[in-house]
């Protein structure tokens, strides 16, 4: 049986790891290599590493650093940040990334997403869906002033053939008060593409609620691992108790 995935998400600012709250106020957290090493030794299911300022600061992700992070990992790694060309993806795959996470370019250039899927296969192309709540649903948070609803964006990306969505609740990011279950429910109704739910996990019961109330099969988290004593394994034990298949 396919196991649910618990994925630590490392967000990076070009120098060190940071953790934001509602996509602002980045708090410095330290060294990505050390952190990757710890997660590898704990045998986590997968790791996501995202340079959340690459696009904004108009720079490419630091390939040397990413390569060093990947070297610590004997599990799958997804890399995101500033990806805007086929060459960018190739560079990341060459140093051992398994998937790439694309955000801004997915909003501005569908042809690029289509080509990426054609070259690398849909399993390799993950799209970041950063959603915030509005009166009548959800919209996609972005710095390009693109006004697009959650439904429309997901529909477009499914049409491009992408292989996975990282769905992050901007409102719940870093708040550690629970996931936006309504958001995850909405996405899982629109698409059969795998979803990683992100944003809001702070206590074990939040994960229990997410997995019992939605059909999601993967969760990404940062704060709970940085700021509490809980490990990915603690979450798995909690999920095992509600009969979710986990890999321990």
């Amino acid at each position, binding site marked *: *049986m*396919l*196991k*649910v*995935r618990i994925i630590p998400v490392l967000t990076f600012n070009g120098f060190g790891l940071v953790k934001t709250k509602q996509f602002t106020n980045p708090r410095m957290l330290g060294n990505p290599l050390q952190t990757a090493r710890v997660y590898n030794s704990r*045998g986590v*299911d*997968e790791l996501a590493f995202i340079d959340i300022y690459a696009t904004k600061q108009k720079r490419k992700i630091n390939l040397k650093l990413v*390569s060093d992070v*990947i*070297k610590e990992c*004997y*599990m*799958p790694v997804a890399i995101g940040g500033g990806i805007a060309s086929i060459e960018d993806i*190739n560079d990341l*795959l*060459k*140093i*051992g990334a*398994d*998937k790439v996470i694309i955000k801004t370019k997915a909003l501005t250039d569908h042809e690029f997403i289509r080509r990426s899927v*054609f*070259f*690398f*296969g*849909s*399993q*390799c192309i993950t799209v970041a869906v950063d959603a915030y709540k509005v009166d009548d649903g959800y919209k996609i948070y972005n710095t390009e002033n693109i006004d697009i609803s959650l439904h429309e964006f997901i529909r477009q990306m499914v049409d491009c053939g992408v*292989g*996975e969505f990282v769905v992050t609740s901007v409102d719940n990011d870093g708040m550690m008060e629970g996931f936006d279950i309504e958001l995850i429910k909405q996405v899982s109704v629109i698409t*059969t*593409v*795998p*979803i990683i739910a992100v944003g809001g996990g702070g206590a074990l019961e939040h994960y229990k609620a997410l997995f019992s109330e939605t059909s999601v*099969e*993967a969760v990404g988290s940062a704060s709970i691992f940085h700021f509490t004593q809980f490990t990915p394994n603690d979450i798995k034990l909690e999920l095992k108790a509600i009969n979710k298949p986990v*890999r321990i």
Partner: protein
Amino acid sequence: MVAIINYGMGNVASVQKALNFLNISSKITADHTEISEADFLILPGVGSFTQGMNNLAENGLDLLLTNEVINKKKKIIGICLGMQLIFANGTEPAPVKGLGWIEGTVEKFELDNLRIPHMGWNNIDVVNDTYFKNTKTNDFYFIHSYHAVPEDKNVIAATVNYGFDVVASVQKDNIFATQFHPEKSQAAGLEILKSFFGQNA
């Protein structure tokens, strides 16, 4: 020495990292002489079937590898797309010929209630345990939207349940291949590579 075939289709670095960890010497290469001289071959790869075959053909690697594997009987392990390309026929995105070392077709998943790609850790059922004897756990990392359907079911070395019994590994003579990624499957994956290469690499 192990030649990791470099044909522009991803994950070669991860494969080499796993071999380094096991102290197995390897080279990432597309060089015909180096490939001919290697003791073992690895055909890794992620991406689409057609693109993979095109890239192999571009460098004459399709003919070279077929000679090494079929005529010279060199041991090879195919991983993910590398397993799929071993089959006679692909369908991604349109019907296309594969390397044809094993008869069969690689088809797209058609599943009503399950998400595609099949992505994540799933447990396999071993049918032929030649290279699975030392694995302590049965969970391996899968990431694929297409799956292989061999004509001769005797080549199946392991299956994984995802809506039905999907082929997770095949073995025929000197050819061994896995749909999952041993190099990404931590201890259990490393054990498989160790069994395959033995002490001779």
